[in-house]
């Protein structure tokens, strides 16, 4: 993953410092703003790839900050952090112009995966590819066809969408909640191991007979599809 410029707007200085440190350790550039107005001023310059905005902020609350930016035609992807984390809060956040929503307390791996997904979306409006490729695995989105090492694989519709999402984010960690949101369109915590079972089914189909598997489990985070072993 290339370097990202991230702005963290968080009034809790400890939480803000933790995030900045954690992102820097991942090789990204991260700045911290302690209140809504400071955050707005920094974000309005438009030099960040992703904004991480706490919902409750002094001086200017997170949702107003985002809608203010959107009115100024600044469309830097924004991820809302909230301690509330209920269905209606998510809806409100996304209505205000947020692009994603993570409720506190969160796992950093989850946040990182989502921030990377947002930054990648920003990485230029490249035309939607119709064929995704990872190694010798090919997924044709128009023909709904998957070919592995020259052999066509038959996938269930849901397996196809799962693989499509993983391949769209090839080389990035994709968390279980991201999969549930984007493949099944539900936003609750998947609980139990439902997603893992779907992944292992998919894995059995695409990694069968492969010496180095493509679909990797990232411990404590989620899954990633990529070519070759680490």
């Amino acid at each position: 993953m290339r370097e990202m410029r991230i702005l963290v707007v968080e009034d809790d200085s400890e939480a803000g410092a933790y995030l900045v440190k954690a992102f820097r350790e991942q090789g990204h550039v991260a700045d911290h703003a302690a209140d809504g107005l400071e955050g707005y001023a920094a974000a309005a310059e438009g030099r960040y790839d992703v904004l991480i905005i706490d919902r409750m902020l002094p001086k200017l609350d997170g949702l107003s900050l985002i809608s203010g930016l959107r009115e100024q035609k600044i469309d830097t992807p924004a991820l809302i952090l909230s301690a509330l984390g209920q269905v209606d809060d998510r809806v409100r956040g996304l209505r205000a112009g947020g692009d994603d929503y993570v409720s506190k307390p969160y796992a950093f791996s989850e946040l990182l995966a989502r921030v990377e997904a947002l930054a990648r979306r920003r990485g230029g409006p490249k035309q939607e590819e119709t064929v995704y490729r990872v190694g010798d695995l090919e997924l044709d989105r128009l023909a709904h066809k998957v070919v592995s090492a020259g052999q066509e694989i038959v996938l269930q519709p849901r397996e196809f969408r799962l693989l499509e999402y993983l391949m769209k984010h090839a080389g990035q960690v994709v968390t279980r909640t991201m999969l549930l949101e984007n493949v099944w369109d539900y936003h609750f915590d998947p609980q139990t191991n439902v997603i893992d079972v779907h992944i292992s089914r998919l894995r059995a189909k695409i990694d069968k007979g492969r010496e180095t598997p493509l679909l990797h489990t990232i411990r404590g985070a989620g899954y990633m599809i990529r070519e070759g072993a680490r």
Partner: protein
Amino acid sequence: MKALVRLFRTTAFKLSLAYLVLFGIGAALVLTRVQINVEDLFDEQTAQTIDADIRGLAEQYSEGGIRQLVEVIERRVRTPGASLYLVTTFSGELVVGNIAELPPDLPDGSELVEARYQRRGEATAHHRAMMRLFQLPGGFRLLVGHDLQDRKLLRGILRRALVASLFWLIAIGTLGGIIVARRILARLDKLSASARRIMSGDLDQRLPLMGADDELDRLAGNLNAMLERIEQLMAGLREVSDNIAHDLKTPLTRLRNRADAALRSASTTEHYRDALNDMIEESDGLIRIFDALLMIARAEAGYCSDFMGEVDAARVAADIAEMYEPVAEEHGARIELATAEGLTFRGNRELLGQALVNLVDNALKYGANEPGAVVRVAARRAGDGIEIEISDRGPGIATKDRDRVIGRFVRLENARSRPGSGLGLSLAAAVARLHGGALRIEDNEPGLRVVVALPATCADATRPPSAPVAPLATGFAAGTSPRAR
């Protein structure tokens, strides 16, 4: 004195007083009317008597002229009575009669008038009479009348009757009011005394019933039912807080122990890393429990009802069935889906989905342990509403446990050994209630059938839940088990 003031302040007393005034006015009106009618009748009779007298005298006059008239009148005035006569000459001198003189200003003619007159031998004109004055030839004048003393007496009698009846009405009414008020006050005092005892903490107390089945008894009965409900809720609350203490303390203790153990015995970075990872997992489990509790609380408060839209229940049921199909296969079981068409209703798709996830997870965990087991997910129209049914052929839940099991953190004995928080059914029940529906737990003969019953239109989802909170769950642990990684 104070007791009396209290008595006068009672509604019963005020009501009796109001009735008393009404009855008093009624009685006065009736008696006045009677008096008017009686007087009218009396006046009419007097007029008739006078007319008869006049006819008699006219006969005498036409037979024997003024002389015979005077003779007849002389004879008549000798016997005392109510009839009045007077004949005067043209100059106004008295010829014969029992009246001292012609009353002044008496209109001439045949008109019957009421006037004051002076009796012969009396000093003043203090009697009243109806009278008629005639002009006779030769300047003579004839007055015929009738005394109204009787009418005065009658009026007096009626007035006294009115006063007496009003007096008795007020006396009896006040007394009755006091008696009724005291009776009610005595009962209310008993009720308030019980209420105070209950307020001071004796929650087992109930309000006394008189067995009269009157409005006070019914009120007391309803209040007793309310107390029953409050007691149930309090017991439920106690149970929940006990359970929260237990269910949150257990993972917190584990968390602490792991940190402690790692500090004491871990030697390599790898060990520390493992311990930290375990602790993160444990924390995630705790967070999940908190989230579930919060969501139940919010759903019960009707908080999410702003975010309702058209939801296809069949689609959600199919989504969840499909999501869990591979999980079922791992268990050696399968999910059978049966959905009808056009099952749209007003609701929240996310919440319904989460409720169904919990129910399907439960069914697979507890009801599908035999190879080849089948969990059935069915959505259908039921009356005006929609029912989504999750059923299995497992051991089911004993009838006695079915109400209990919806309660938060309730886990039946055979579920305790497995992962779970005991919140899944509570959550499903809360979601059903939020939509104005209910969660039913039934016997699938054999096995368990959980039915999410939803009204087609959730007209009043924001109302406070009317269904009891505790009696909805089964001790099925819900699917808030720690995520496998």
